[in-house]
């Protein structure tokens, strides 16, 4: 199967490419760039990408797919459908399922369910500790053989520094990146939103920024001690960004991600007690948001990750204190990233780096995050001028928990190709054509 993505503007930071090119995909791999007017191989389907941006497939390092265990919130198939509709060709499934992915059997199950869905690449993370209980190391080696790409106890911060040290040392032996949900629970216990002006006004218990800060600083110190590759999940505070920046300057192997809601909204959004503004880490104030934007601009923040966290409407219909943390994010993340481009904070090249090049590097995903010859034919096609409004009722996710319903955005992923197959095409676009028309389009 051959596809030519014709007339698009190609951005591939992995090769420093920024310009008009035709991309040829053959048998699930990138076979190279064709110059305009060059003879096409036989039997090529042509996708006319005139006016569109062609980027290596976007990779989300932080996705909760809820299967196995909570299929009423999301399944691997529904999550993967939401992923490709949002422009993500690869999603990294967090291990906090039921059972926790702390064994090769669960790892293989997740991979197989992903393959069955035939949408996005679904690559699992394994637990850092058994049952993510923070007590004993999980079987990282066995899970790596089964296909995990990193280890994490996401959602269950590793409280004990000694345990974290051992986990980092052990993971390093298998070249597995350690992902930490950095939060000192002795400081954040009982908290449901950011601690500050708004938590005082609303009478809700706050989670101080310090709860995240002390753990990020601890993790930087432990990364230096162990030499492990450490990735900080969803940074949300100024001091976290500062700590990562300093650690990088010192040559420590540390990376970090930011979730779109953390730069888009502030804790003021909680004022109506809408439980779709409840997540962990929580929405912070303007000062923290400014620090995140600085980190996105100067390279301290390596990647944009969705922290897609589906919850059923009945669970979110509880009191603010009782509702679970988290929001869905796969279908809004790229639109919210375009807001950064539209505000002039980052350029499109940086956006592709944040969503594709860097995440592939952080989890060492071979032949992804690039359009180099023989890379996987995973491609995200963007229309920076596409004006749209997010309608959660049309979401491919099984859950509806989002604060962004009805948000007008400019810029979106309009087509998604995974392994050389077109797995998503925005209904407003019908530009995939057959070979007979290629002469008309691929000039």
């Amino acid at each position, binding site marked *: 199967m051959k596809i030519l993505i014709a007339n698009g503007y190609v951005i591939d930071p992995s090769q420093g490419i920024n310009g008009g090119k035709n991309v040829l995909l053959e048998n699930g791999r990138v076979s190279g760039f064709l110059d305009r007017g060059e003879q096409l191989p036989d039997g090529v389907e042509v996708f006319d990408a005139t006016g569109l941006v062609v980027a290596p497939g976007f990779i989300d390092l932080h996705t909760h797919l809820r299967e196995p265990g909570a299929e009423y919130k999301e399944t691997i198939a529904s999550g993967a459908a939401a992923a490709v509709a949002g422009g993500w060709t690869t999603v990294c499934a967090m291990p906090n399922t039921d059972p926790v992915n702390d064994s090769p059997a669960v790892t293989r199950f997740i991979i197989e369910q992903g393959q069955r869905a035939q949408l996005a690449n679904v690559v699992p993370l394994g637990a850092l500790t058994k049952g993510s209980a923070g007590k004993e190391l999980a079987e990282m080696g066995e899970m790596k053989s089964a296909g995990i790409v990193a280890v994490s106890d996401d959602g269950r911060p590793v409280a004990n520094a000694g345990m974290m040290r051992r986990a980092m040392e052990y993971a390093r032996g298998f070249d597995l990146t350690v992902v930490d949900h950095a939060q000192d629970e002795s400081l954040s216990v*009982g908290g449901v939103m950011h601690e500050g002006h708004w938590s005082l006004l609303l*009478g*809700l218990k706050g989670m101080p920024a310090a709860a995240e800060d002390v753990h990020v600083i601890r993790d930087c110190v432990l990364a230096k001690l162990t030499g492990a590759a450490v990735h900080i999940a969803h940074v949300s505070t100024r001091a976290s960004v500062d700590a990562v920046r300093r650690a990088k300057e010192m040559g420590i192997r540390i990376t970090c991600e930011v979730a779109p809601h953390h730069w888009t909204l502030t804790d003021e959004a909680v004022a*109506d007690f809408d439980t779709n503004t409840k997540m962990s880490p929580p929405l912070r104030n303007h000062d923290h948001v400014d620090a995140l934007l600085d980190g996105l601009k100067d390279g301290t923040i390596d990647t944009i990750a969705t922290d897609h966290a589906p919850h059923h409407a009945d669970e979110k219909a509880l009191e603010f*204190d*009782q509702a679970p943390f988290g929001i869905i994010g796969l279908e809004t993340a790229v639109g919210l990233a375009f807001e950064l481009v539209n505000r002039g904070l980052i350029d499109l090249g940086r956006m592709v780096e944040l969503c594709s090049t860097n995440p592939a590097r952080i989890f060492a995903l071979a032949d992804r995050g690039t359009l180099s010859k023989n890379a996987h034919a995973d491609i995200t096609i963007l229309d920076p001028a596409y004006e749209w409004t997010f309608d959660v009722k049309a979401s491919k996710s099984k859950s509806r928990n989002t604060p962004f319903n009805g948000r007008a955005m400019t810029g979106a992923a309009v087509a998604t190709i995974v392994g050389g197959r077109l797995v998503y095409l925005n209904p407003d676009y019908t530009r995939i054509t057959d070979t007979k028309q290629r002469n008309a389009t691929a000039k």
Partner: protein
Amino acid sequence: MTTDAVFNRKHLLGIRELEAGEITHLLDTAETFREISKRDIKKVPALRGRTVINLFFEPSTRTRTSFEIAAKRLSADAVNVSVSTSSVSKGETLMDTARNLEAMSPDCIVVRHSMAGAPQQLARMGNSPIVNAGDGSHEHPTQALLDALTIREYKGRIEGLKVAIIGDVLHSRVARSNIHLLTKLGATVCIAGPGTMVPAEFNEFVETGLRVEKRIEDAIEGADVVMVLRIQRERQDTAFFPSMREYAVHYGLRRHHLERAAPDAIVMHPGPMNRGIEIASEVADGSSSLILDQVTNGVAVRMAVLYLIAGGSHAEVDVDKLAPVENQAKKQKGSIG
């Protein structure tokens, strides 16, 4: 006292969103209603045929009784519903509860809940007018209104007064509503208590009129009103102070503290009191204490709130409707005959 402002909101969820004029209108209306409770026949037909549901997710004697009496003195049918928050764990959501009650077509739902924001959520999910009777550590608007009515009764005004609020401000919905109300009406509020319960962020809580002190003596200095907050042991997951004994010594209000206050200073407490801890009995029962007047004014304030919310008409108080029930009945008989 006359104002141009009226109160025409559908819900009373908190004081924070109210304008000074709306607060004054509520207080003026409450003053009109206060007289009814002094009559022989303490009942007027203002809300006849209306249904008020008191939906209490948290135990309360004083507030629930006060709302119930207020509704009955206005001839509304008051129904008390107590819901254990443990029903949440049985799977019934806040929304289910609200929809069930709404199907019975109440004219107003009075909500008390141990978790902040529950009345806001009910107001958003449903169609019934909601009155917040206290939600977690968030707001307790009718308590602030009755406190203000009491202050106005004894001091003649709110504007320009100095009010000290002492104790566990962090966990207190009463303190939050009072800070909003008093500063909106031009009083200066000074809060003090243990550092664990009066965090420095309170300095930016409202735009003007609020000061934070470490020592209660400094907050009480020159105060016209001293409000003492209840130590709410039930809202504390970890210890915020070492012992009741130490709290009583350093943060409990005693008679000698009042020597620093303005002459004729008044003392208030939202109740129920922990005597000997946040307030010494000699102060609670002393001549400057208005704690029972607060309870009396509570009924008047809740009558005003129910009248303005459940009455369907948000105009000035209709004097005819305030005529005793008996007279109304006679009038009607007369017209038939």
